[in-house]
């Protein structure tokens, strides 16, 4: 087997059968998010070393790399969960040396989690509704009393419910609206997680391994939903993924990390031809 075929799209080559006619229009815009010279250390462990890349509006940007390459750390820096020791992040013209997770969320960046952080005992509807939290204006007292004359909480809830219902329709999970999330299969929980992130009506969506642990069919579904989100809402998507086939199929540009360093950046074809990437994925003697 040549090195080239090993890195190329294999398992999920036909990840998006639905998008054949009228191929997806590339409509990337300005740079919305720029990461410059980020370094992150945990004590003596260097998780990220001098990473720089940018994300353009409306694109699907993938961050890939072998286990422990620093992909999730990178996402956590953008998201404000970790504070990098060096470097800056520029979001829509504002530059930060560290991000604050609430601020990030308010700026329109939403994320999903690798190990699902859903409320297992709550229904799908309530879980997605919780994504609307930042957009709610009424306070807890008004919500508790629900008096239509002075609180408006009920009217507000139905507005939010409408947004949530559109997401439920979009993700085709109508049948599970009232099902507790913990009872759903893994692939569907992932979809609910995506739904909750979408409920924030984000401009940038960070997806942490959206397809981990899924079977081929679930991966195809998820790929289609990601492309549909990108297409219908124009959401910019940054995703971390393990499955090379899927990544190469749905991304516009790919960043490759290995041992906390950036070893490649470019279109899927460029990355596939990059010798450093090939050796990182196939392994070389160190």
């Amino acid at each position, binding site marked *: 087997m040549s090195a080239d075929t090993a890195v190329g799209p294999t398992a999920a080559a036909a990840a998006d059968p639905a998008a054949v006619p009228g191929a997806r229009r590339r409509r990337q815009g300005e740079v919305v998010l720029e990461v410059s010279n980020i370094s992150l250390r945990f004590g003596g462990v260097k998780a990220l070393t001098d990473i720089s890349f940018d994300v353009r509006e409306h694109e699907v940007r993938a961050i890939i790399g072998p286990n422990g390459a620093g992909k999730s750390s990178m996402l956590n820096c953008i998201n404000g969960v970790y504070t990098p020791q060096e470097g800056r992040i520029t979001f829509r013209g504002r530059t930060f040396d560290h991000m604050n997770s609430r601020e990030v969320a308010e700026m329109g960046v939403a994320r999903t989690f690798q190990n699902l952080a859903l409320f297992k005992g709550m229904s799908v509807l309530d879980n997605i509704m919780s994504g609307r939290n930042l957009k709610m204006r009424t306070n807890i007292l008004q919500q508790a009393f629900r008096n239509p004359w002075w609180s408006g909480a009920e009217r507000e809830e139905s507005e939010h419910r409408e947004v949530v*219902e559109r997401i439920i329709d979009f993700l085709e999970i*109508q*049948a599970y609206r009232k099902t507790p999330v913990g009872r759903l299969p893994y692939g569907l929980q992932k979809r609910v997680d995506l739904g909750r992130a979408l409920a924030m009506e984000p401009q940038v969506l960070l997806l942490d391994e959206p397809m981990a642990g899924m079977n081929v069919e679930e991966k195809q579904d998820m790929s289609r939903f990601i492309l549909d989100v990108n297409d219908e809402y124009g959401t910019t998507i940054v995703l971390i993924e393990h499955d090379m086939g899927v990544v190469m199929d749905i991304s516009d540009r790919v960043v490759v990390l290995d041992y906390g360093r950036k070893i490649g950046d470019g279109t899927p074809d460029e990355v596939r031809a990059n010798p450093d990437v090939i050796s990182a994925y196939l392994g070389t003697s160190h």
Partner: protein
Amino acid sequence: MQTTFPRLMLEHAAKRPTAPALREKVYGIWQTTTWAQLAVLVRDLACGLAQAGVRRADHVVVVGENRPRLYASMLAVQSLGAVPVPLYQDAAAAEYLFPARNAEVRMAIVEDQEQVDKMLEVRAGHPPLARIWYDNPRGLRNYAEPGLESLDALVEAGRAHGAAHPGFFDGQVQAARPDDVAAMFFTSGTTGNPKGVVHTHRTLLDRAGAGARFDKLTEREEVLAYLPPAWIGQNIFSYAQWLACGYVVNCPESASTVMIDLKEIGPTYYFAPPRVFEGLLTSVTIRMEDAGRIKRWLFGRAMEVARRVGPQIMDGKAVGLADRIAYGLGNLLVYGPLRNTLGLSRVRVAYTAGEAIGPDLFTFYRSIGVNLKQLYGSTETAVFVCLQPDHEVRADTVGVPIEGVEIRLADSGEILVRSAGLLKEYYKNPEATAEVKDAEGWYHTGDAGFIDAGGHLKIIDRAKDVGRLLGGPNDGAMFAPKYVENKLKFFPFIKEAVAFGDRREKVCAFVNIDFEAVGNWAERRNLPYAGYVDLAGKPEVLELVRECVEKVNADLAADAKLAGSQVSRFLVLHKELDADDGELTRTRKVRRGYIGDKYQALLDAMYGGRTEQYIETAVRFEDGRTGKVSATLKIVDAKVLPALRQAA
């Protein structure tokens, strides 16, 4: 009835403009379309279609789930004197090609992106398909195909056209005659190309009306439309009778939410094929097994009472006071809540048809107070031929001929039907039409059966499959393979059965065990097994199947006409019959002839009196690889009883 579908729709809109005509669950809420709104929508759509070039007698394909705007589209097409051709929404694009060419289709109205993609494929092989409209625009933003537009655009165009030509729509509707063609339904023949069954407004409305009068349907019925609209049953229940009676048709949110929507709507008039009722019962059984001990005990006791007296109470027969009290209590604690959970608490009339329904399954629903009945009919007869009257319901018959139907048995035992609801013709296929409809107007159903003492029709099998035994003690007796197979399949342990006996001296059968049911049974008995082949060969399992076969024999012996069809020998096959191996059709019907040829060695061994036989079979796995399965199968004798009543 001297009217047409669009005229009925306009009458409802004039008489009860604000009454609901259709409901659809969208974004979690049931949204209503009133008759007046529907009339406006249909008018706009019709004007738009006319402007797009739809002329009288044109065929317009309609594909999708049950959606209000697709229903309105069918009405709009009919308003112009054109013919809607509903096609199955789950068919592959290649399967649309024949109907599209056969009916010279130039336009199609479809539900969503999936259907648009298929229609574009059809267009590649049938270029005259110039215009395609879609209901749901999702995912279609970047399609730049010529002639592809949304229904919204069509409505807009139609509104403008209608404003410029007032009176056009009403003129078109008034110009239509009851004997104009109203719809065409393609039936999938088992061999060859599908045939387009042509029905007029008169044929469909005649049967819709007769069925409605039989069950006293009113405008207050609630119906859930969830089966494919291309199937005439759904079309009759949620289109023809909808317009004839003016009741409400509810469209579920999606295919996966049907059970939830059923519960929310609580239909009063309900139709489902046996497999749906079976699925419902299975879900109940599974949930009861997981329930606590007290609930299980209560359920068990209540069902015992229900089995004993429920069907009699349903049939209006006298039952002892103690039983009546026990049943009343059961109704309060178990049957009522159960009906509610199933979404059947408001059902006044429920029908099942299409295939034979197991007596246990049938009795279960009747015993908990659901008025489940059977009917007999087909696409060619506009469904309603025989229906079971309330209080005269039995598991093994399909009811009495209803108003306007004449039934006659041909010498071969084939059922002949004559009514005002028979098909006009098969489209562009006079030979096929002549084959099924004779000069006196009798339709040859192809089903074999007889009328029993109570005047009820009993279906045995397809006429061409009914054979005769040859030689032996039952020489010349009728052999109805499917009747026998169905009786076997009613046992949960038996998944498939194939009966042989035509021109042979006795009946023998191949049996497929149900891996899940028998596997569970074996586990409860601590019976270890390695896999399907091993389990199917266990002596305990053979014994289990033998009990089932002998019960069937006892049943058959009670029926003088069919006593000869008792199964005297059987074997349990080492592999599951599979459509991928050509043993079943795609709709899971056994291909008896093919199986007989493929397992000739086994058949010879059974009729040759041997007790076991080695067999090796090639199988095709789901990923396309092939392999071999081999086993030595035991052939088991089953007890055959003498006929209880001698044939006169």
